[in-house]
């Protein structure tokens, strides 16, 4: 407690202008920056998979299974930063028991459950079912037990059942697209519906969150595909990689357009909150917004991939470029979440002053904890890829 007060007394000396006395402490920190980031990765990876399954972009086939497993690995971790942020995590079951119908946050439990069970797990199950049956016959030990259990006793491997799996999987994917929109759109709505905070309160918020989620998910799958291929020492399908980069380009353009629209609208209308927001963007958010999010995370990737659409350099250069772009896009989108969550709390609702955010390394809201939540899904993904390798699949959908 003493340490906490010490930190607050320091923050008091850093106040610029006037803030309401209760606003000295930022209530939503790194954990709340991470949660939209992780669910965004899930939604984005899923959309990439659905591009192949529903929209029949065949070039993306090598990444279909990979994208689904990436989405699953990150979805397992998604709740954790949220629950660890609560002051009373053991009461979190209340969100399932008495969800408030007027609260956007209350949707969380149900949308998460629905997406995890009915969309992702089912789709993966339908896609892998036949392989599980076949693999259960040829493997030993843990894998054998797992495969036998997961088939749920449905052991048909004939053409008819394969066709049924296919149809059902397709149906689930189609259902999954609006579900993915809901999974991440509601997060945007959580911010967008707060009329008290002018930095958050915009109609475009759910849409911006959704498109930036798609950007981050696609970049993630691109990176994962490159890394996994390198680890397995297999040749990367350049057509696939180029197609992923192309879709990243298109969606990044839409994302950039939406965010620019939001800012231009603010600039033009210049209503009451504009004066403080102008100082916010030029001051405390200068590096994280202008440099990290816009220039580094959006303009540079757009320029490079855009250039590639006109002139395609050699495969080697493209691979290096895509790897670099994947990383900077992921960083840029992380900072987009940072700018929304932290930025929205840095200025006072009196529109007359700023408080400060002190980054900590240890503790539940620290950098170390964030690193854990980001590395854990990668470990889970490695485990999933060992358990259900997409490249060893015997049957793939039409």
């Amino acid at each position: 407690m003493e340490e906490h007060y010490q930190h607050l007394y320091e923050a008091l000396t850093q106040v610029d202008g006037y803030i309401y006395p209760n606003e000295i402490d930022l209530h939503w920190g790194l954990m709340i920056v991470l949660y939209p980031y992780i669910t965004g990765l899930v939604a984005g990876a899923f959309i990439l998979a659905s591009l192949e399954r529903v929209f029949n972009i065949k070039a993306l086939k090598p990444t279909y299974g990979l994208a689904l497993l990436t989405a699953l690995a990150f979805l397992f971790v998604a709740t954790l930063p949220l629950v660890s942020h609560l002051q009373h995590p053991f009461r979190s079951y209340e969100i399932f028991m008495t969800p408030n119908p007027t609260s956007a946050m209350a949707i969380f439990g149900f949308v998460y459950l629905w997406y995890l069970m009915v969309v992702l797990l089912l789709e993966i199950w339908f896609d892998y079912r036949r392989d599980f049956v076949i693999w259960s016959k040829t493997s030993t030990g843990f894998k054998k037990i797992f495969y036998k259990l997961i088939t749920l006793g449905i052991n048909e491997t004939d053409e008819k059942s394969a066709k049924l799996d296919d149809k059902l999987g397709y149906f689930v994917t189609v259902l999954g697209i609006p579900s993915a929109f809901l999974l991440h759109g509601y997060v945007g709505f959580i911010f967008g519906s707060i009329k008290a905070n002018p930095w958050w309160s915009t109609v475009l918020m759910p849409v911006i969150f959704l498109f930036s989620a798609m950007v981050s998910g696609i970049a993630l799958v691109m990176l994962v595909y490159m890394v996994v291929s390198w680890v397995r020492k297999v040749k990367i399908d350049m057509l696939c990689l180029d197609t992923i980069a192309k879709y990243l380009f298109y969606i990044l353009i839409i994302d950039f357009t939406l965010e620019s629209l939001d800012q231009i609208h603010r600039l033009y209308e210049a209503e009451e909150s504009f004066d403080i927001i102008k100082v916010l963007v030029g001051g405390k958010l200068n590096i994280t917004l202008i440099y990290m999010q816009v220039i580094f995370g959006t303009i540079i990737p757009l320029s490079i991939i855009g250039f590639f659409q006109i002139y395609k350099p050699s495969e080697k250069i493209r691979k290096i470029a895509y790897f670099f772009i994947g990383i900077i896009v992921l960083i840029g989108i992380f900072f987009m979440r940072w700018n929304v969550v932290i930025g929205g709390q840095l200025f006072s609702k009196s529109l007359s002053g700023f408080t400060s955010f002190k980054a900590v390394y240890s503790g539940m809201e620290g950098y170390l904890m964030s690193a854990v939540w980001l590395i854990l899904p990668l470990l889970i993904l490695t485990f999933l890829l060992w358990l259900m390798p997409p490249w060893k699949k015997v049957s793939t959908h039409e």
Partner: protein
Amino acid sequence: MGTERIKKNRRTFFKTSAALISGTLLYSLMKPFEGLAQTKEEDIQEDKTNFPLWGMGVDLESCIGCGKCAEACKIENNVPIEPFYFRTWVEQYTVKNNGEVKIESPNGGIGGLKQSVPDEEIFKSFMVPKLCNHCTKAPCVQACPVGATFISPDGVVLVDETYCIGCSYCIQACPYGARYMNPVTKVADKCTFCYHRISKGLQPACVEVCPTDARIFGNLKDKKSDLVKFLQNNPTQVLKPHLNTHSRVFYNGLSSEVK
């Protein structure tokens, strides 16, 4: 023949379990509506007319910024002494001759507000007490994911301390900065109009100690109350009316500089 018997048994098994499950499902779905169906409607209608509707008036022409209200509130409601948690506080506005507005609230005004700008530079100065506005359309109540903050039947926005999960969404949703996270109980906290006092016929602590009667508490439904007379005799305003929160804290003498 044996398989037919097996099939029949399996069929009966599925039928009975389907019946049992759907029966339980239906029953459990009915249960919440059961409570609704009976007398709830009549009870509420009857009670609602008997409940008062609490509100507060703040006379900015009387407030001297002594800070006694903020201090008394902390004592009465066990709010941590540290200058980071306030259920109510007083702001000092100093409009300078060059048009600049300086707003300050050191320790919420406890100890008395002192002027930091030299007299020659001051165009005008005034004090504004702030507190939870107990909005009839409270954005905090709308935002709470579990129903831990609510509007009581007599119009007071309260927090259920045993139910709050500490997500801070209500704190983000409040446009007036009236809420804070209590470091001891680890739940959201705020002014309750001293609900434990007003339910016994006493005044809230801040009203009790105000030496200039700048705070007027009362029942908006009582035409004879001081509060209703205050509203009738003065041009009153609420804070941030454009947000349509239907705040029930009314200010007399609210100048346009007030944030």
